[in-house]
């Protein structure tokens, strides 16, 4: 396992928060996913060994929770809310706009590896629907025009990186 020193440090900090080590499974998986981008089979086994569990105890968690993934995704993660309040305000069109902008279907990584688009369930910001999360940041009232603006910004940021 090749984890950054600060990730390893935060892992050691979080484990004593719980009287039972198994409770640290979710926090450890979050830390590893933030570091490595996804949870590899090796990572799941590493977490199990660190917490004194069987690998299946970790794997069953990874496969249950929607936010944990077992393969890498695009550099930027666009999560469009699909649920009713957003849909009533045009969430499906917002998602379709991102798909057109990046020529990629929801659930897939764009050919250049830049973005993954995901249609997710309620993000708890229904009053400013439709909403979208890009990586950790929430964007509110994202109609189709706003979705195109955000897409242009993401492309500009990608170009600046290259």
């Amino acid at each position, binding site marked *: 396992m090749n984890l950054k020193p600060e990730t390893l440090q935060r892992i050691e900090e979080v484990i004593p*928060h*719980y*009287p*039972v080590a*198994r*409770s*640290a*499974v*979710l*926090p450890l*998986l*979050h830390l590893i996913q933030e570091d490595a981008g996804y949870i590899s089979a090796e990572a799941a086994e590493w977490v199990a060994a660190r*917490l004194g569990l069987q690998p299946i*105890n970790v794997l*069953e*968690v990874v496969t*249950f*929770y*929607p*936010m*944990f993934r077992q393969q890498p995704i695009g550099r930027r993660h666009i999560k469009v809310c*699909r*649920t*009713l*309040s957003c*849909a*009533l*305000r*045009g969430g*499906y*069109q917002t998602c379709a706009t991102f798909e057109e902008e990046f020529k990629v279907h929801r659930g897939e990584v764009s050919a250049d590896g830049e973005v993954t688009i995901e249609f*997710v*369930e*309620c*993000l*708890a*910001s*229904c*009053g*400013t*629907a439709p909403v979208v*999360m890009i990586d*950790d*940041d929430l964007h509110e009232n994202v109609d189709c025009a706003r979705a195109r603006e955000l897409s242009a910004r993401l492309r500009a940021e990608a170009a600046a990186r290259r």
Partner: protein
Amino acid sequence: MPAPAERRIIFKHIDEPGYTPDLACYLRHGGYAILRKALAMAPAAIIDEVKKSGLRGRGGAGFGCGLKWSLVDRKSGKPIYLVVNADESEPGTFKDRYIIHQDPHQLLEGIMVSSWANNVRQAYIYIRGEFPHGARILEKAIAEARAANLVGPNVLGSGYSCEIYVHRGAGAYICGEETGLIESLEGKRPYPRIKPPYFPAVLGLYQCPTIVNNVETLCHVKHIVDVGGEEFAKIGTPGNTGTRVLCVSGHVRRPGYFEFEVGRITLGQLLHEVCGGPLPGRTFKAIIPGGSSAKVLRWGETFTLKNKDGSTRTLAVEDIPMDFDTLAACGTMGGSGGVIVMDDSVNMVEALANINAFYAHESCGQCTPCREGSLWMKKITTRMVHGQARAEDGALLLGVADQIAGRTICAFGEACSWPTQSFLAKFGDEFRAYPGTKATPRPESVPLA
């Protein structure tokens, strides 16, 4: 009658210019004075005030907070845990988000007061994974409070010690169910536990007595200790005390969050006066009053309700006071306070297809009726909106839904079948009339599924 003015207690500082989530700002606004007051009170006296206040849980079930606390097993010799349900996931609900992001110390003070009252030495805030900034804000707030001796060992020199930790979820709605949340906090799949025997008050986190309270509920506790239970009980209406944050989304001109005394505002006042009425050229059609699990109300319907003296009264949908008891008497629930509004552009088959997709995605899969039933309800409504509707689909949907509710370990069984049951009861015609071939275009509205 004009709508009453908002009464902001919990949301007093939300969106206030210059109000920041740091400790210094909170202290400038009188923060943690109530924790000092609470630490000078006997724990049993605080529990007593909470009982007197009549506070009902703001997470969904509306269970009495004082009663919940009084059920805690205090003789087991095991530690008592407080778990804060900050897994805000019920579609249509978005109140805790603002408390967490803008006023985290209000929540921490509520947690500390409640922990002292219940002899809790370790509290966990279970926050949904989709609030990464919220988790960081809470962690920073805890560190600040700890440095100021407001959280941690020997709080304010009282001899009382309590730690608070933030625990992030990872995108599963079922973690909002309190025993599922506990399983998740134990590092497992969040399969809800069967009750009895696993009542959290007796056998909760690590098989120890555990209190699970909603974010807004714990914030109210702080204010109850401030004014006293009797004074608090004067806010709102009898049996439905305090204020409550109502979240309005969907087809109104001004969606958002509004805090009112419970039961002092009617659904009609809320939607017409506070939220500016329907969108231009539209009329209201259907309202889900308490998060997407709550049974739908049809705009224009009336209810015959029983009075205490045995007589009956008729109540129009727009005259329903937004409290726990009247909404329950009208066959739905106040739930989490999330009001979702649909106007006449919406076809109810499409709306149900959207809701069913949510529940099929979120069923934990533990109980067969729910795992299979939620999936089949989704398959049927998805098929309907994609040009394959059949005349018998409404009856088929109802048949599935009726076999889920009451047959599962947790309330998700009801949550996923109530939408189908109520949509069919109130809008059955639309299901019977839905176009059944690909050649017939789908109803004209924004796509919902």
